[in-house]
């Protein structure tokens, strides 16, 4: 007599691994594996997004960890799973804002300037890099810093989200909670300032390694 199988409910089909919305929907329903897939997919991008704004690899590691921890706990409240990416970037943006607020407060009690502190954690000063590589990095980030310093806060955020983090206008408007026309206006202005950043454009026009 053949052994009868126990009656169980059909398990939910595994979400399409390429479909972020489907993974987010599964994670929202408590699927730990789906959330791990999302974390694997976005971790490096979120880490770099934070690095662009803190210029510290150590801070980027810590803040990225906090971002995924918060996302793990709050994904049950995510309404539109197709907007997972914008939602995750929004969490990261809030964490970065918190970081800058705390740093500003700490700087009241410390003689170090912002740039001193950032350089201390900047990988351009890491001893395990070749001198040429270090020089290239230092030169590039100095040029970027010079450009970003010329932008207003909103122009800088929109510019970074569009060209460094590679988000679309709609996603940027959701991350920053501004209208698309506002985002575009800040983007025009930021690009106009980039156009006049001749040394950075010369650098980009060279044959890069």
């Amino acid at each position, binding site marked *: 007599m053949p052994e009868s199988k126990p009656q169980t409910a059909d398990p939910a089909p595994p979400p399409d691994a390429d479909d972020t919305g489907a993974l987010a929907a599964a994670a929202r329903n408590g699927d*730990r594996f789906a959330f791990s897939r999302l974390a694997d997919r976005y971790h*490096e991008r979120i880490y770099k997004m934070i*690095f662009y704004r803190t210029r510290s690899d150590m801070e*980027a*590691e810590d803040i990225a*960890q906090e971002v995924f921890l918060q996302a793990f706990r709050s994904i049950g409240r995510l309404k539109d799973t197709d907007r997972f990416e914008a939602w995750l970037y929004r969490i990261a943006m809030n964490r970065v804002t918190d970081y800058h607020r705390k740093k500003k407060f700490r700087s009241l009690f410390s003689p170090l300037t912002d740039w001193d502190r950032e350089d201390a954690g900047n990988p351009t000063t890491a001893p395990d890099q070749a001198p040429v590589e270090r020089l290239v990095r230092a030169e590039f980030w100095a040029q970027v810093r010079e450009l970003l310093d010329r932008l207003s806060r909103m122009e800088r955020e929109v510019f970074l989200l569009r060209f460094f983090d590679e988000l679309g206008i709609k996603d940027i408007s959701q991350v920053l909670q501004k209208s698309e026309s506002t985002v575009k206006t800040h983007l*025009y202005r930021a690009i106009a300032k980039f156009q006049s950043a001749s040394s950075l454009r010369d650098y980009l026009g060279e044959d890069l390694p």
Partner: protein
Amino acid sequence: MTPAAERHLDDDRIARALVSEGALTHPERRHLDDCRACGDRIHRLRTDLERLGAEAARLAPVPSRAPSLPAGRPGTPRPRPALRAWGLGLAAAAALVAALVLSLDTGRMGPPVATVPRTVAEDPEMIEVRMLAENAMPLTYQAISESIEFDPEEAEGFIDFLIPPLEEDVS
């Protein structure tokens, strides 16, 4: 071509064209369709911006560890962490204020307030101190001085005797 369509796009219009072609006017769009120089400028700008992003990604460090996730299922929040932190903070602040008030109160007042007047009133040394504070002259001299009548003119003459007026010296 109309005069507007003949003019090359300035930096602002080039930036707008890059973000959204809908931001350009109809003559500007027509100019862009026909003008190779403006088309090249937009292309070069787009390429530079793409390179900028690519360079940033290349020259940024990579994370050294994957994020560690807590045990359990995603989407289960901790029990109101913000509220709990606020509650703990408020409780700690209240305890601190209470401790501060109690320590100040104890240090300033010493024994209970109701017992103080009785103790001072009954202490002979304190009675003497209080009397001396009111009038430091010994009781015997107080009795003598009570019988002397004060005459302002006599007092003035005595003072003139001690310290002669300045006019007398001059004359």
